[in-house]
């Protein structure tokens, strides 16, 4: 299976052929994948060099002229480093863009903390009007990339990762899917966390919702699920633990409820190694999830 990131350049290259409004803006990272597209569209595939403030500022400037910029680099350099550009050049200027990140929370553990961005979605939560897609499979990434580009002048973040589920689901760019129905709690699995969540909840009588569009948060789906499964809610997210706890709390504000937010811990591990080792270190492997989810719903 290819990775989401390997899918990104071919898909967006086709979109460049189809839609003259689309432009790609890069900061060195990912440029090889767009070499052919750049030959066909030399003025709509732009590499600004290792300049991430300019990456966002120039992307916003393209949008001000009516284009639809697709802006790409690693999550830490796309969201964290030029964060004020996201706030002002896109938000305050009322300009839209599709931001597509790679490397996620710890896709390259041997690269260390400088290339990890578990806080990206939480940071975007401080801003207004962002749609956030977190695909769990390369096919879903393709679908969500197309939704993102087609979303008018919206501000959209697409978070690509090497972590992926075994099979793709029919995601629609907005709603959560019900993957399993139970009567004792609702587990929301975000993007690449689904397989581990399904394995972990095999013997538990819980509903599993699969969410690949986390902003706006599908509050209606969560409320519906609690109708049969009760209002014990576990969120399992591939980025900072608790990122969606407030959104789940808002969805259930008028009913008594309990929420457990699982995800990547805040503490810097200062470890290299493999993705699997980091998943385990953050308690996100199926075995650890089984215990954490099981204890939570049993304690109801």
């Amino acid at each position, binding site marked *: 299976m290819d990775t989401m990131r390997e899918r990104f350049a071919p898909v967006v290259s086709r979109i460049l052929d189809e839609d003259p409004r689309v*432009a790609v803006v890069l900061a060195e990272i990912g440029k090889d994948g767009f070499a052919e597209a750049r030959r066909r569209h030399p*003025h*709509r595939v*732009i590499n*600004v*060099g290792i*300049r991430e*403030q*300019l990456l*966002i*500022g*120039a*992307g*916003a*400037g*393209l*949008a*001000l*002229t*009516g*284009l639809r*910029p697709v802006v790409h680099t690693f999550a830490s350099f796309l969201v964290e480093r030029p964060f*004020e*550009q996201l706030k*002002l*050049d896109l938000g*305050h*200027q*009322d300009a839209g863009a599709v931001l597509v990140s790679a490397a996620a929370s710890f896709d390259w553990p041997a690269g260390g903390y400088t290339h990890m961005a578990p806080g990206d979605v939480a940071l975007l939560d401080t801003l207004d009007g962002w749609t956030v897609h977190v695909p769990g499979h390369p096919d879903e990434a393709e679908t969500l990339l197309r939704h993102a580009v087609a979303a008018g002048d919206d501000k959209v973040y697409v978070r690509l990762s090497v972590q992926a589920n075994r099979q793709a689901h029919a995601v629609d760019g907005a709603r959560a899917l019900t993957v399993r129905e139970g009567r004792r709690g609702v587990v929301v699995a975000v993007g690449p966390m689904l397989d581990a969540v399904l394995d972990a909840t095999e013997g538990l009588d819980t509903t599993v919702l699969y969410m690949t569009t986390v902003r706006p948060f599908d509050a209606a789906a969560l409320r519906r699920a609690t109708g049969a499964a009760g209002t014990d809610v576990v969120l399992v997210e591939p980025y900072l633990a608790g990122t969606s706890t407030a959104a789940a709390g808002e969805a259930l504000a008028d009913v008594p409820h309990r929420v457990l937010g699982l995800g990547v811990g805040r503490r810097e591990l200062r470890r290299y190694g493999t993705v699997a080792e980091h998943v385990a270190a953050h308690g996100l492997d199926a075995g650890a999830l089984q215990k954490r989810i099981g204890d939570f719903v049993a304690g109801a």
Partner: protein
Amino acid sequence: MTITEGTPRPATHADLPGLMSLMTGDEKHGPAATSTLDVLWVLYDRVLRVSPKRPDDPARDRFLLSKGHGPMAYYAVLAAKGFVPVDWLPGFGSYDSPLGHHPDRTLVPGAEIGSGSLGHGLPLAVGTALGLRAQGLDEPAVWVLVGDAELDEGSNHEAIAFAGAEGLERLHTVVVDNASASHALPGGISARFEAAGWSAVTADGRDHEALHSAFTVAHPGRPHVVVARVEPKSA
């Protein structure tokens, strides 16, 4: 446009102090009190192809005020040229006014960007020039006004280096230099632009003819910067 009902005539440079005093309440407010006034006037009066009648014309020139501090001169020029109603000026900075102490593009007719945080205009201008080029709009010029101390912000240097290497001919920067940067070397501003491949001219920022000449110099294949020197801020 008309400044006062009943006396229809085009606004002139001499009207600007009166327009500014509507915002500041200072009757003695002269042009020298604001570093950007003459640069803005020459651009809007003689260089920029923009019109309040066609604010969304894709082929219009773009002027981006990056140095958003002290925007009274900008609002005065926009009022003089008919973009902003004169009767908006006295409300400057109040809750219901579209005119804040930093401009907001969604509120101010004719403002291409909102600014206030320094170092955002040049990257936005680079993107604007790229966007126009990608759409085959080779005529419109993109202008961005920055302050000399604003160039302290590293984001500008990302934009300057890229624009020079890319040969963004339709991109123009005017640096209003009132010697307000704490750490600067004489001649350092134009030298940095030139090192990045820009065409560069330094002019007296109060001399309208000199500014016009500097603004309209040919610069084939290269972006162009005008360093407009005015009285030092500390003087």
